[in-house]
Each structure stands twice: as C-alpha cells, then as structure tokens.
C-alpha cells in the first residue's frame, strides 16, 4: 500500500515534534500566492522576442545568497557581531534534570568524566525562571525569541537525551544551518540527535535549510565570530581537522572567501575543566565585545591566537579565573558591537568589560552554569544584521 502520510493516529501532543500551527514557510507561500507574477520578476529576463539572445549560463553567476530568502521567506544567519535580531531558546522541562538520567545513576563517574556536570542537584524551577527572564531581557533589547520545545523524553541515538538546553548546537549561517557531529564523551553518549532535532525544527517551522551535515569521521562543533570576516574555531576533542575540512568551504561560500579562520588549539582533552577553566568549546574561552575588543580566558587560548589578537590591534580583556571556573564568564551573547549580555555571577569580569567601554546587561544564569553551560550555549542565534568587518 502506498503511503500518503495520513495513516496512523497522531501521537499525543507532548510526544510529537514541535510543529508551528502556521509554519513560516507556509505563511510565506500564502503571501506569495497573492502576487501578480510576471516575467519581470525573473532575474536575467530580457523581454519578449529576446529569448535567444539570453545567455543560457546567466544563472551560473547567480549566487545562492541572492535567492534563498525568496525560497524560504526569510533571511537567516548569525556570522559576525552585527545587531542580533532572532534567537531560539529551549523551554525547560523535567527532562533537563540530568540527575534522573539512567546513565548518570548507573555510572556517575563515567558521566562526570569530561567535566560537564557539577555535583549540585538541578533546580528545574529556578532554571525555568532564569530562562524566562533571559527571554524577557532579549525581548527588551529588540530580539525576537522563538521558544523551542522538545517532545517529552526526547531520545538520542544511544539513549535518553541530555542537555537539551544547548540550542547553540545548531549553527545558523547566512543561508542555512550546519548539523555538527559531536565527539566528546558525554554528548555522544546521549546527545547524538539533539542538533538533528533542532535542524529539523528550524527547517520545518522557520524554513531554514541545512547547508551541510558533518559526516564521515569528522567531528565539529560551532566556533565564535569576532567580526563578519573573522571566525575562531577551537580544535579539540570536539572538533578535528576532518570536521573543519567539511565546514570550512561552506563557511567561505556564505561568509566570503576572505573570511579569516583562526584555529585555537586548546590545552585539554576534556570538554571543561572546573579547576582550570579551560574548555574544548570556543564560546567558553573567547568572546567578541566590539570590533576591536575581545574577552578571553587566557590559559584556554593557544599562543598563536594570543599573538594574532595582539598583532591585529585587539584590546584584550581577560576573564577573572574564579569566575571562568564558576560562572563561565566568557560564555556571553553579543547583542551588537559594544553591547553584550553576560552572566551576572561574573561580577569582576563584567566590571573589566565595562571599564573597556562595553555596555553589559547582566542576566542571572547560575543554574545553567552549574552544569557547564551558559548563555551562549543556550542560544540559537538565528539572525543578525550585517556587522563590522575587521579586515576590509
């Protein structure tokens, strides 16, 4: 029997993937249906009777970035430090409580081994409150917030999912998203499938297509843009050269061939070391503050990157060591050049950032911080305006 998709009884709503009542793609289609289309709407059309004069290879000069928004009905992409416009963050649920995860109960030492979890029991209610307040702050600062829901008890490839709050796992670049491939101990255990859910959510509900999925034996997780033409990527237990080789050509096609990619070879094999503050993830050790100002966790950055920053005229603000370990001080959200949201617990670092002339909006986020995540991890940056460039 051929399948037409109407077979089967729908699952209860709580067990279904989140589907907007009206997807942005369908809303766009409906608006476009109302237009009076003529061939003048078509690029390269030269007029009646001139069809044979038209170069059949015209379309080979037409860049994907010129038309993708006509297909999906929106711009997307956060690849720089321009004004932040749209984000996605997760609704917090009981499933976020990692202490109830069967693997944590079975072998807590194994689950703790990469430094992700701290020993405190999670306060879900507090986490919800903090997330709601974070959404309000974003909204107050001119950012649209999409609330992302996972179905009840979401499943990864190898067990019940953990750390659903990490919405930043889905990188959204101009024209579409990147599905990464995780490689550190905790995430694959129960994390394979999170970004895939987010990518599917974003494609269906917002129309944002996938530009590339990291495959083979590549591993890659997102880095951080310091400007529209400057991207930093930690090379670590979470990103290998093979992964970078897959992502780099896509990134250059949508961000520009002259994009400078600064690889940071991190000093650890863990995701995060609570005593030293070093981490495998770029957003834990470096963050943009303005076009010529950067916040770094100095011992988490390799010497070549330090030299690059100094030699390119950056004013470097260093995070307070204690706050890096306890409050993940580098894990911030740039709202626009010279304006950022930071963890309220990173008081001394905030003071140093403010002293450098950067406006800081503090947000309480300690409940997330206790298990190795921060504002940047929790935020799917969907759209930014074009921002300043460092080199051109």
């Amino acid at each position, binding site marked *: 029997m051929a399948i037409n998709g109407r077979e089967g009884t729908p*699952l209860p709503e709580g067990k279904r993937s989140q589907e907007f009542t009206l997807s942005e793609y369908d809303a766009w*289609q409906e608006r476009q249906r109302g237009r009076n289309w003529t061939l003048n709407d078509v690029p390269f059309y030269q007029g*009646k009777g001139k*069809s044979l004069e038209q170069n*059949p290879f015209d379309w080979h000069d037409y860049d994907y970035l010129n038309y993708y928004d006509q297909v999906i009905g929106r711009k997307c992409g956060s690849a720089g430090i321009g004004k932040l416009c749209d984000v996605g963050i997760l609704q917090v649920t009981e499933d976020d409580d990692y202490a109830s995860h069967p693997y944590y109960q079975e072998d807590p030492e194994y689950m703790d081994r990469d430094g992700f979890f701290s020993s405190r029991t999670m306060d879900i209610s507090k986490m919800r409150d903090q997330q709601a307040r974070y959404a309000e702050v*974003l909204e107050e600062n001119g950012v649209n917030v999409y*609330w992302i829901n996972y179905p009840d008890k979401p499943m990864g490839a190898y067990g019940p999912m953990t750390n659903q709050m990490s919405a930043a796992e889905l990188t959204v670049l101009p024209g579409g998203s990147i599905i990464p491939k995780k490689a550190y101990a905790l995430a*694959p255990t129960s994390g394979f*499938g999170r970004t895939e859910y987010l990518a599917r959510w974003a494609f269906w509900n917002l129309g944002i297509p996938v*530009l590339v999925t990291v495959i083979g034996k590549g591993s890659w997780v997102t880095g951080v843009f310091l400007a529209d033409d400057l991207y930093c990527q930690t090379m670590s237990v979470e990103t290998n050269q093979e992964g970078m080789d897959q992502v780099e050509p896509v990134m250059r096609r949508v961000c520009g061939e002259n994009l400078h990619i600064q690889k940071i070879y991190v000093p650890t094999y863990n995701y995060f070391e609570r005593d030293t503050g070093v981490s495998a993830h770029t957003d834990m050790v470096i963050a943009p503050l303005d076009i010529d100002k950067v916040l770094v966790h100095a011992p988490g950055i390799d010497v070549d990157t330090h030299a690059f920053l100094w030699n390119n005229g950056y004013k470097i603000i260093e995070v307070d060591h204690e706050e890096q370990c306890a409050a993940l001080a580098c894990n911030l959200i740039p709202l626009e050049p010279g304006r950022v949201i930071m963890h309220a617990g990173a008081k001394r670092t905030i003071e140093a950032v403010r002293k450098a002339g950067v406006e800081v909006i503090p947000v309480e986020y300690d409940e997330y911080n206790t298990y190795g995540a921060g504002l940047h991890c929790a935020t799917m940056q969907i759209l930014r305006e074009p921002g300043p460039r460092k080199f051109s």
Partner: protein
Amino acid sequence: MVQFNGDENEALPEPRRSHSFAVTEYDAHQEVLRQRDWKLKDVPFYKGKGETHDPFDWDNLDYLDAYPQIYGRRCGSAGIGTLREVGITRPSADDEYSNHPYFHEDKEYMNRDGFFLLSDVVDIEKLKDEAAAFAEKFEENGVKVYWIEYPEKPIAAFGPMMNMHSAAELAIWPGGSIIPKKGYALAPTAGLGRAEYLARWAFWNLGIPPLLTVTGKGVWVTGTFLADDVYCQGMGVETNWDGLEQVTPVLKRVCGEDIHIQPIRSPGWKYFDKYTGANTHGGMVISGLDVNKVLVHAAGVDIDTHMWLRKNGYQVIEADTHEQINHSAAAIVNLGPGHVMMHARAEKTIAAVRKAGVEVVPIDYDEYNKYGAAITCATMLIDRDPGPRKFS
C-alpha cells in the same frame, strides 16, 4: 520585540499547508526508543564501570554508523542494488504548465531550452492515471511508495512553481539528501524552491536530513549510478565544476573514497535537444542496467565516457534515436541488477535491452514525456540495498 511559541497563528486550510504526516517517521522512532530499557552497554565505546575511556574514541565513529539510530531509518540510493523505497509526486491541476502565467506571457522564452516537447496542453487526468499505474508497478515489484504532495499553487523563488513531478531532484544518498541548485533557463524561472520543498518534506516526514545544499555560484543536479562505486555526472548548463566540487567530497564520504566519478560533458547548451535527443541530465542519456551493462543515448554522451565504458568492459546498449527524442528511452528506473523499468513506447530500445538479458517492466508515461520528463525524473529514489561494485 516578540516571543513566539509557534501557536500564535491560525493554521491554513489543509490543502495550503506543506504535506505533514499524521505521524512522522521520526516521531514514531522516538516513541519506539522511549520504550527501551537503556543501559550504558548500549553506548559505543563504553567499557564498564571504573574502566579507562579514551576521550578520542568517538573520532572513530562514522556518521553512517550513527544516523539510523538518530532518525530510525537508513536511506540512500547510490548504486543499482535492489530498490526498496521511492517517492513520487501526486499530480494536481497545478501541473498544467499551459496555465502558468509565464507561459502565457512569453511562450517562446519558456520553450527555449527544449523542456516542453510535444504538446501545449497537459492532460491532467491522464497524468494522474499514469502516476497511479506507476505507483502500482513499483509495489508489484516490491518497492514501497511514498506519495509526495505539494500545497495548492506552490510558489518558487521567482514565480509559481512548475514541473512538480520532478521528485528525482532530491538526490538521496546514504545518510541524507543533497539540495541541488538549478542552472538552466526554465528551472530557475519557476523551479528554485522545488528541491527545497522536497528536502524539507523528507527531513520532517521521513527523518532524512540534508547532507549538503549547493551554494555560492555552483550549479548541480543529480547524476546517475552505474554501480555502487561508479557515478556519472552530466556536466553542462545544469551542472558546473563548482557545483560538482561541492558535492564530490560528500559523495566520497558516504559512498567510499574509491568511487569513480565519470563526468559527461553534454553536447549543446539546452536541457533537451529535440533534434538529437541529447540532454544535460546524466540520467536521461545513460543508465545502469546491470553491473556490466549500460544503456546509452550515444549522441548524448561525450567521447571520453564512450571510451571509458568500453575500456572497462561494459556491454553498451544504445537507445533508439527516435525513441530517445520522443520517449526518453535511455531514462529508466533501475529496480535491481538486471531488472529495470522503462518507457513502454520505447519498444525497440526495450527489445534491445531484453536481448541483452535484462528484465524490463514497461511503463506508460506518455503524458509526462510530453514535457520533457521521464520516469527517472519523476522518482525520488529513497532507499536501495547495497548492490554490486564494478571495481572492488
């Protein structure tokens, strides 16, 4: 700004919504996984409580080993193994291209690349009957059929969509799909957006993620496999070297580094030349019949490819030229090694193929042929068994 939950707007009437399954295969898989009693022994590389774990173990996990666990299915047609699943589009009144406003506005322009062939009018009822018979024939031959539905009056980037029947536009390889970028005159006019719809449909409903979107100034449409390690790509107005260079690394990662990629430099600049039967799409001029047998339209295949086929011991069967022009004789659907579907009107070509020891299932597909389409174009090849390899 605004916070969105996805339930703010009223749903469109069903015919104007994207085709969403009552139960998506992804959600059904999630529900199955929820029922399992998960233990850490289900996790790759877990060695037991108190044991030492190499943090780089996961670098050895290939994407192809993990994706079926995430999405609940395997996918991919990259060879000539037994065909298991296909998608075909349900015809509707929107397939009547003579109603398209651009066709009314400048018929010569719309016809210039040879797409519309024999008639100004499409018989929609006949189209529906042919599609239904095509689906039945697949089922009789053990192939699961998914009906793909577009919403009413689908809109592409630059106007009302056309040629929605071309489900083959979405290439599905092991692990996911490739979103192409069209480059010839008709398709961008009203076609940019079709493959995107199909990719979104497949990701949401079947859990098949895009592996790559062709971007920048690359143009690429799918080619055809002669074996699990031989892929032919028509190069021309629809595929340039930039497009192929984007796709090749992905192809090698999911099909094997040793896959032979045979570029066929198409003669002419049109999609289809009605005087010679040449076509810029690989699948219209060359088809795998068995691991050592190939059907070609000789005047549509470049000299290097002719030479390559003979040097590699292929038995080459040539399509009848008249049948190629009128019935796309070289465009087939491979059901498995030595077992193919062909256009019923291509009688002489069918006789030649049968004489070569290949089983042929004839299909009436005249109405589609009228506007330059074939069963190959109409079939999204979703899944095949591994099949024979030519070189290893």
